[in-house]
């Protein structure tokens, strides 16, 4: 059973924040979107998404609202807060710094 921690530490948070920055989504949609956007590489197991969502909500980065889906079913939609938008910027910057550093290290060893 793969857990969110199987992803690089903290990346699930970053991915969720990024997805929600584009539009408010419910949990199911986030899970589908993650799957389709990243192929099967970044698969998050069903259900283990929710603890992460609730954690982000407690942090005040996202907030939830019950709305109707296009199929007329009630679902809990999450959207980014002002705090979350700032957090997304910080984490994106941190990620870019990290990944570029790692990439350059990897290139070094190949050369």
């Amino acid at each position, binding site marked *: 059973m793969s857990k969110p921690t199987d992803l690089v530490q903290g990346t699930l948070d970053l991915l969720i924040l990024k997805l929600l920055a584009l539009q408010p989504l419910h949990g199911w949609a986030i899970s589908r979107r993650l799957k389709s956007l990243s192929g099967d590489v970044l698969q998050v197991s069903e259900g283990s998404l*929710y603890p992460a969502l609730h954690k982000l909500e407690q942090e005040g980065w996202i907030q939830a609202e019950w709305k109707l889906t296009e199929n007329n079913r*009630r679902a*809990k939609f999450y959207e980014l807060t002002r705090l979350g938008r700032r957090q997304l910027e910080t984490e994106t910057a941190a990620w870019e710094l990290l990944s570029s550093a790692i990439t350059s290290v990897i290139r070094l060893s190949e050369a």
Partner: protein
Amino acid sequence: MRIEHWLYALPLKFRSLLRRDQVERELDDEMQFHLDQLIEDGIARGLSPGDARAAAWRAMGGLTQRKDEVRDMWGVRWFTDLVDDMRFALRSLRRVPGLTVFIVLAIAVGIGMTAAAFSLLDALVFRPYPVPRPGNVVNLVSTSRDNAFEGFSYREYLDIRAAAKSYDGVVANSTIMGIGFAPDTKATPRVQAGMLVSGNYFRVLGVEPQVGRGFRDDEDQVQARDAVVVLSWECWKREFASDPGAVGRSIRLNGRDFTVIGVAPKSFPGMFIFARNDFFIPLAMAKLFLANSQTDFFESRDDRQLALRARLGAHTSLAEARHELAGLVGAFQRSFPPLYRDRGAAVLNQVQMRTQTGDVKNWKFSAIFTILALATLLVACTNVAGLLLSRARGRTREIAVRLALGAGRARLVRFLMAESLILALLGGIAGVAVGYVGIGFLSQFSIPSDLPISIPIRMDTRVLLACATLAMASAVLFGLAPALQCTRVELATGLHAADVDPPGRHRMWGRNALIVAQVAMSLMLLTAAFLMARGFQSGVERATGFRKDHLLMVRLDPRLLQYDSTRTQQFYRLLTERLCDTPGVSSVALTLNPPLGLDTFERIQFVPEDFELPRDRDHVTSSMDAIDEGFFETMGIAITSGRAFSASDGANAPRVAIVNEHFAKHYWPNGDAVGRRFRLEGRGGAPVEIVGVARTIPYRSTGEKPIDFVYLPVAQHPSARLVVLLHAPGDPLALVEPVKAAVHSLDPDLPLLELRTYEDLYRYDAIEGPRVAVRLVGTMGAAAVFLAIAGLYGLVAYNVTRRTREIGIRMAIGASSSDVLRLVLGKGITLVGIGTAIGLVLGVGVERLFDATLFDNSAGVDVVSYLIVVPSMFLATLLAAWLPARRALRIAPSQALRWE
């Protein structure tokens, strides 16, 4: 950033706590939605509905677990767990209602007793002055060799106020024992209490009048000019129905018209805890109210009637203030050497003032009550700890199962503590109820005075806080040890048997210690109750040598009507003559204050003849009463040598005195006191000849140590405020109307104070007060003994049950019933023995404490008390052990072996 975070997080946390059901439902819905979508997805991919459902469940990987992970994220887990623990504990307690009720009652008695005793102690010692910033209000007292807590004279007050730099103001006040008050000029005056205060009194203490204004400083500067008065809130409510229009009105005090300028707030009944006073009057009006007309209040440097209080300056320490005051008194000594020999001064804070001055016995009493009550609470706690321990051991298997299923030890201890906490909370609440009863009981002390004197004992926030603290402390005390012990179970054995001893030799040590402590403590409490009862009893028995029954008393004070001294003396002469002629009266007497009376006795300074004074002093002092020639006959006090006063000992006759035997022996041990002389007020004073010696009796309270006492003829020491005593062979109360008629035939306006039988006064001092004390301590002792007996019974009964199989085997292989009895009873007897020995030591300690604080006990150890208490305690506890032990004898081996 952090604030914005909490802006989002706090509402969420509150929501998950307060609307837990809805949040849970939303979590269900959210997960269900995901699940439904998964299933639909599966069906769309061509799976059968059943397969799709199964696949979806698999994919979610344990829905319950997921939900729990989510709940962890809410960050309120610790709290909801606590609530769950509480709920569960409540449920498991409901399954043992008898035990629960017993425990709650035991804790309630302990806490309630302590609360009641503490409320008294609080009222007497700890409750802060009812003014803003009470912490920096200090008391200034004058000290001398014979009296460590005297007041200051008016002159001294002015000097101190002018010179002292340590304070933000120094105030003075003097209690007036009785003021004749009339709401208008025509009404007959009634007697109320009042207080003379300096003009800065309200301002310095920070008390804002509720209506009107306080005094201006100039209203206290010219003698007898400004007849203004501030009413107390109580007086305003009682006499003027809280009418704001009362301010500006004129009322009559001691025959003079006073203008009401303000009303003190309800929160400020005055600085003194016992007496409520109705009127605040400027010091400049003192001449109208003060008793002693022989000295000049405003001029005499040693007419010390003022209590001084001051507010310490912001940057001044108590030590600096003390140093400064000592310097000031030193300057007095240099300016007026004869007046200030051996005189000093002290600055005391509130607690020092209340514990060191005045009637020290009261607060010592209440401190002892509190200690004894805490001992009762301790017995209750140890008892409950014992009960919980046996209950927890009975649950060994349950706990082992929980541990085996993965519950952490900390979690289990928490759960067991939740149970103790609930018990303590219930006990605390019930304890408040017990406390109320106890306080009602303590308030029964009604002091036989016309003036409102009361100890304001009440269940206020401070006492409630103390209750809550005690409840929590007792929860830890009786809950933690059992919880820790019973979670230390070996799983393998724990799962086998319902009830297993933890390994190790000291397995029962804790319980045994608890029983020993209970026996010892309850023995101590019982001893205390007995000693107290017998101490008071012996005080009463020794209070002989004066008449207590068939006496009527009434206090009169013609100063209330502005009599001068000639008219006062004429009034008393006519009154005694008329009363002597009244049918049913066999004798009449005048006195400043009868034995055990509510006023304090005056003190005289004198130099005895032919007696070597200690080198460093130039006079000695003694309590004094001024009486007329009928006093000894009326009070039935024997003159052991010499003569009583006679009508010829008048104002112009040679000065005479009668002393008590203690006084005579003190100064003239050879027994020739009659005919000796002493000089009043130092070596140059008037010589007074001792003409008689009277029996020593108790003067201030029954059971007091014998004191020196001097009687002077009232004709040679005139006073306006006197008590008339009448001896009636018949019912003294039948004389009430004739006495009223006699007084009113002389002056229809004169109020009669403290009109009652003398027996009332005596009973108050010797019987009513002690009865309350003895009952209180007796109740504590009884409760403790009951708890100890129940605890011992429980221990032995539990042992018998636990060892049923062992006993069965022993009997099967030939043990006799006495062997079995010894087996189960032996330990109980040992425990009782040890407990009794320790209790005996504690009891002797309590007796020492009593002797040092309460009773004049010259008899040493009170053997009789121990002879009663110890054997009865021993027998009672043995019975408690023997009853359950008998059950062991009835065990049938065949049945016992089939146990489990």
